[in-house]
């Protein structure tokens, strides 16, 4: 297997310490080495104080969101050789407070969901399939959104105004509007029908580009807007 030395230019920051700076580490990589594995190798062999978030290592948990060469990515599924650069720049996500190194505080991400005032985040969805195994009502699966924050990091509007609800929360809102499952979606539509809601989006579609999990928040924001436009026109012309 081919092996090569790759330089990783990593964002470093410790609370109460020196100003943030980049530190470069040289790591031996092979074809299977992902950026996350390389970072773990750095922690093991070169600097035990380097910290990052990670858990599942296969793009299912959404913890290892970071910026790799400027793009929002999950470190666990980006192979170093696929980047085709001899230096890989690794930085924490944007639009979030950085706790240390590559670790951001996910609090604001969840705060936005909670400001809806109704259950917004779905854990699982039911699948429509005729032949279901005995003893089960329907097959079910976990929702696509893995709450990785990459869309929030990529969004240019989020970068100027944290009061924007942001792509992740809006996408979750659309899931409820699309499939209310007994919930009244009206208050939710009212919630997103605001200056900080779905109208705030400027259609830069960075969220779609960044989404690693097939949620495509940009499309869902547009779907919310279509729904609201219809509603407004209906109201304008007396339903």
């Amino acid at each position, binding site marked *: *297997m081919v092996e090569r030395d790759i330089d990783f230019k990593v964002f470093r920051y*410790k*609370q*109460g*310490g020196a100003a943030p700076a980049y530190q470069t580490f040289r790591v031996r990589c092979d074809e*299977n080495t*992902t950026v996350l*594995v390389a970072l*773990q190798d750095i922690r*093991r062999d070169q600097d*035990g*104080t380097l*910290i*990052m*978030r*990670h*858990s*599942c*290592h*296969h*793009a*299912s*948990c959404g*913890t290892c969101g970071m910026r790799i060469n400027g793009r929002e990515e999950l470190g*666990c*599924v980006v192979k170093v050789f696929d980047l085709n650069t001899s230096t890989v720049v690794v930085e924490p996500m944007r639009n979030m407070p950085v*706790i*240390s*190194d590559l*670790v951001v505080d*996910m*609090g604001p*991400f*969840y*705060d936005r*969901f*909670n400001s809806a005032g109704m259950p917004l*985040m779905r*854990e*699982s969805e039911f*699948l429509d*399939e005729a*032949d*279901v*195994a*005995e*003893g*089960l009502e329907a*097959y*079910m*699966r*976990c*929702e*696509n959104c*893995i709450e990785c924050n990459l869309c929030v990091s990529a969004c240019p509007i989020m970068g100027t105004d944290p009061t924007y609800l942001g792509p992740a929360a809006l996408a979750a809102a659309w899931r409820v509007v699309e499939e209310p499952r007994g919930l009244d979606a009206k208050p939710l539509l009212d919630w997103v029908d605001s200056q900080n809601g779905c109208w705030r989006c400027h259609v830069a579609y960075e969220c779609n580009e960044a989404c690693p*999990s*097939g949620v495509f928040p940009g499309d869902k924001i547009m779907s919310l807007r279509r729904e609201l436009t219809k509603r407004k026109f209906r109201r304008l012309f007396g339903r």
Partner: protein
Amino acid sequence: MGPFHAVIIGGGGTGAAVAHDLTLRGMKVTLIERGELTSGTTGRHHGLLHSGARYAVKDKESAVECIEENTILRRIAPGSFELNDGLFVAITDEEVAYSSEFIESCQECGIPVRRLTHTEVLAREPNVNPAIKLGVQVPDATMDAMRMPLRFFATAKHNGATIKPYTEVVDFVRRGNAVSAIRVRDHTSNKEYEIGGDIFINAGGAWSGRIGAMVGVDVPIRPSPGVMLAVYGRLSNMVINRLHASGDGDIIVPQRALSVIGTSSWVVEDPDNLGLPEDHIQMMIHFGSELIPAVRTAKFRAAWSAARPLIGPRGADTGRELSRTFKCFDHIDENVEGFVTITGGKATTLRGMAETTANVVCAKLGLAKPCQTREFVLLPHTAYYV
């Protein structure tokens, strides 16, 4: 004197459940984890909520633990699972012959089973290898390997536990033969400080041997990694297992929009250095495609290794021969007071491991508080962040 203070080292599923259990029993709890929560083995397994059927023939103790905990977890963590059951499929005649022993053993362990014919299996799971001869349906499920344990952290936190990720233990402080404090380094600020406590619980999983060594006790842990492969697409809705005594690449777990194929097994010394043998990835594709042929053509998503914390003597070489049960060690046997280790086990049994540990801890401290975690419905994972 206030409540006893328990300090838990290790923020995986076990530590999470121990923190939850002990807070419910009224103790003051501090948990430290050197990295992100669930960043060791916990988040990284294939996400199977075991029915226990996998162990029914050879390891009844584990099988019974699994089915009991499986039932409890469905009750206390609703929403964290894809409850689609599992299928054990027999492909060879040998496996068909094995099926009666398998079904009997499952029944002995209290695992509900249903035998399905070739046609029934393919009607439910059309992607499964059409050469299969029969299937056995068991109550397996897919779990969200990171969010389910996070619910234990969330609940513990809301009940008063202090959870400190990015905090690594660097030394133990002893008073006489008792551990009286740990010295930790906070990696977010590079500051070191001490945390005192009445009892110290080593929940380091595959790393628990290393933590034990810092205190000078021997934890017989064998970090035993396995390789997993994730491909795009849900190739099945039920968990598909090979109906044989356990082996490599014999399970496919659908998870969100992915399918995870697992797993292999070997033994390493350093749980931080697992590697990712290319031949094991190929093995997953090879054996996985025997279960579901589409594995061969499915688009690659990720391949990774995770270290099981198996209990066993030195000298084990593949880890397959080791039991998957768990054990709580009170190191008073080695003349160390105030230090217990909980290790072994698996994600499915995390609550049970915590119950056992908390029982040991309470007995040591003379605290007569019963376990409440069997019925306590956990907060959603999002509660951890607010």
